């Protein structure tokens, strides 16, 4: 084959691909999304420990602590502030020392201190925090001293109740199942638009609201049914059944809402698949936080599926109750409403 002909074909195909708005948008969006995810993730291994301290210590001691490698000290005025920072993930843990800590240590009186860390704090960091306390006592007294430590775990303490690897995958599987049905719904709706059968429907007594309702129920029903079957088979409905079912239902509604968005964006099955996979990738990120604790941080909360994954994980694996998880459900319902309204609005615009 003449290289010129091959070159011409390549040039033609590239030109056609670039003229195809779908390919262009997906290409750009994909690049932006993957780049953004990459950039949002920590750029280097952070071996320093952010450590909170509630204590009346001379600045020299704090400076001495910070002079050592791997420690950043954050001083708080009260235990409440310290707890808030730990719960919010700003610091890995913290120490609260009594007001007469220095006096007691220097006089050799047995001392005690309170150690706080969150349930998500890895074991190695917990050990490091205990060592830190001994280091402070040594710095003040100039010799090793025994310090009684009162440990408080903020959040659910999972120590001693490890989760089986397959159970950590449960939320990921559930999200995949739900989001796969999102693609089914998107494909159904997209095909209606592509083959113009939607026009035939719209000149019957069925109106656009009825169409969305029918499609929404179909999509939600399919996603919910499959997720429930999966959870039932793997024993995921054994604890907090009502809570898990409601969470799955909200997840299924989310799938329907995203399905509308994907259908509006896609032109055919292939483009629906492309957009759907993009959503699946992004929405799967929070599930990896369950599989690899500490691998994602606060920004994952901006991904709506976080509230689905976290609720399922907490309810199924740790038996958390309605009282613990209702804020997640509220967030999930809020995102659902946004997706449904946005999806319907965009599809309506597409239908003209």
């Amino acid at each position, binding site marked *: 084959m003449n290289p010129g002909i091959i070159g011409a074909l390549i040039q033609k195909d590239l030109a056609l691909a670039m003229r195809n708005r779908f390919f262009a948008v997906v290409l750009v969006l994909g690049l932006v999304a993957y780049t953004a995810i990459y950039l949002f993730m920590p750029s280097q291994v952070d071996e320093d420990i952010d450590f909170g301290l509630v204590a009346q210590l001379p600045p020299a001691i704090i400076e001495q602590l910070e002079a050592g490698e791997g420690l950043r000290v954050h001083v708080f005025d009260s235990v409440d502030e310290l707890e808030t920072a730990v719960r919010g993930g700003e610091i890995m843990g913290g120490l609260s020392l009594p007001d007469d800590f220095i006096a007691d240590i220097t006089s050799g009186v047995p001392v005690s201190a309170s150690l706080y860390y969150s349930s998500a704090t890895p074991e190695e960091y917990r050990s490091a925090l205990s060592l830190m306390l001994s280091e402070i006592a040594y710095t003040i007294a100039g010799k090793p001293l025994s310090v009684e430590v009162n440990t408080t775990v903020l959040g659910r303490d999972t120590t001693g109740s490890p989760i089986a690897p397959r159970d950590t995958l449960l939320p990921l599987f559930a999200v995949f199942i739900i989001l796969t049905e999102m693609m089914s719904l998107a494909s159904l709706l997209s095909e209606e638009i592509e083959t113009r059968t939607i026009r035939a429907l719209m000149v*019957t007594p069925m109106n656009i609201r009825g169409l969305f309702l029918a499609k929404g129920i179909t999509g939600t029903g399919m996603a919910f049914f499959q997720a429930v079957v999966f959870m039932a088979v793997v024993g995921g409905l054994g604890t907090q059944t009502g809570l898990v079912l409601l969470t799955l239902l909200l997840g299924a509604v989310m799938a329907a809402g995203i399905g509308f968005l994907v259908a509006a964006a896609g032109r055919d099955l292939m483009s629906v698949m492309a957009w759907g996979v993009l959503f699946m990738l992004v929405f799967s990120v929070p599930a990896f936080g369950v599989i690899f604790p500490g691998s994602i941080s606060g920004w994952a909360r901006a991904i709506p599926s976080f509230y689905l994954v976290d609720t399922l994980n907490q309810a199924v694996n740790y038996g958390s109750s309605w009282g613990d998880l209702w804020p997640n459900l509220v967030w999930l319902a809020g995102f659902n409403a946004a997706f449904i309204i946005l999806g319907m609005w965009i599809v309506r615009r597409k239908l003209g």
Partner: protein
Amino acid sequence: MEHAIIAEELFYSYGKQKAVDGISFQIGQGEILGFLGPNGAGKSTTVNMLTGLLKPQGGRAVLLGRDISRDVDSIQKYIGVCFEGANLYEQMTGEENLKLFARLFDVKNFDVKALIARVGLEGRGKDKAGNYSKGMKQRLMVARSLINRPEILFLDEPTDGLDPASAESIRRVIGEERERGATVFLTTHDMMEADKLSDRVAFINQGKIVALDTPHSLKQQYGKRALNIEVLDGEGKLQTREIALDTPDTPSQVREIMAGEKVVTMHSEEATLEDIFIKITGRGLS
């Protein structure tokens, strides 16, 4: 005559492009109106507004005494629409397609086989619509538009590109619907078909109705009658002579040809709707 459709100053634009530019017309009950125009003239946009798919940006459309913009849901129970180009559920059989829409229209005791037979698809109702030929799909689309025994039937290019048998089958159904009393809004660019089926025709061009009358009146008003005579010239080649009828010179011109040339054929010709459309708009239909 009661009016099934009243369009008053209907207007719709896509951005700055005026698709339908303030058109007005009325269609009586049981009447067939041929709506003729070239591609892009505004035919489909008009149909979309009349069927409730598009909300008019100006003017109003009243169907069966109700404003389509305000009462679309109730009006759509009484209309049937056959779109240009197949839009069927191709993975479903012909019968399943019809049954689905019968359910949407809430038709009780729907006889799917009778309707299938009416459009000449007997024995093919159990086949997937995707396996139908173009003509069969079009017949199924026409059948779908008849499910609710509509009072107004919108047919958009119903015979475009069909084989003669399929086209004739559809024309027969249109005639039967007129006999039943249905009003038919027939969108087409097939002038012969419009001439044959329509009580009146409307010419639409660049979003405006440029003529609206019976085919006969339009021919009288804009057309010319002529006599076409084919003769053999001195070299034995076929030549055509056209003589305008209804002029004082016509008899002498005919006599002159008959006497001086070897006449092969002779036939009268009257203007077609296409001729009239070209005369009015300066452009053809295709």
